[in-house]
């Protein structure tokens, strides 16, 4: 076992444990903090896979923006969640059963899949970010996703602001 594998196992264990805490913590704010730890773990795994750019983006977008947004939303809707009583549905065991079932199914499919024993590729060249940037605005490659992403962000912004800004004289 190489050092890389040991680090991976450790990080994966922490990530999964904090993910479990996210779905089981009673206090919403604690769940959000566990979510932050879990997202950070995923960021480290990206770094282990030589995708440094996405490590940084994961921290920037998920921890810096989405987690903060979630924390704000928790604070805004706080009265309803005085953190008493069960935080799970009555049928939570059904959900657990479904999750375990899906996991078992995925595991079986993955292990029986012939491609699973592939060895790692050559690894990324140092200039991959440059190539990525070029391809993003190349009309023969990914200019569509590029522009669609900005339209999608625009739509999200307009929609979210429309919903969340209180209308003057609107129904309360």
């Amino acid at each position, binding site marked *: 076992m190489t050092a890389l594998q040991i680090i991976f196992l450790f990080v994966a264990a922490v990530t999964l444990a904090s993910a479990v805490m996210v779905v089981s913590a009673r206090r919403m704010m604690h769940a959000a903090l566990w979510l932050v730890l879990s997202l950070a773990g995923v960021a480290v795994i990206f770094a282990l896979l030589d995708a440094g750019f996405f490590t940084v983006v994961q921290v920037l977008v998920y921890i810096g*923006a*989405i987690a903060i947004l979630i924390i704000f939303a928790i604070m805004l809707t706080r009265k309803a969640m005085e953190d008493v009583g069960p935080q799970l549905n009555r049928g939570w065991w059904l959900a657990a059963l479904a999750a375990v079932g899906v996991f078992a199914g995925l595991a079986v499919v993955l292990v029986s899949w012939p491609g699973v024993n592939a060895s790692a590729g050559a690894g990324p060249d140092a200039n991959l970010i440059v190539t990525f940037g070029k391809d993003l605005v190349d009309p023969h490659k990914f200019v569509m996703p590029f522009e669609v992403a900005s339209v999608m962000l625009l739509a999200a912004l307009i929609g979210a602001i429309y919903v969340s*800004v209180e209308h003057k004289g609107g129904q309360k």
Partner: protein
Amino acid sequence: MEDWLYIGLFVFISIALPAVAIFLAGLLSPKKPNPIKNTSYECGIETVGPSWVQFKAQYYVYALVFLVFDVETIFLYPWAVAYNQLTLFGVLEAVLFILILLSGLLYAWKKGALEWM
């Protein structure tokens, strides 16, 4: 990979360093709590109601606009890195990208979402 090892260690150390300092100071410092000392600080007045107050939705809107502009970095930074090797068309594509985002900002502005209330 070596760079990332260094970064990981550096982040770990920059959390550990203040942690060690705080721990050491905890050993040195006196511990004499009493009920009055341990109450929440509210300028000498007794705390009324729950101390986790609810706050304005306005903060949420700022965070929202921030999120949108933050995600844009995923696309704009690689574009900026490749900038010197692009054609004019490639540059104009990104200008269009920014213009679309800018129109979102203008919408938020017109809607009054950016006002401090």
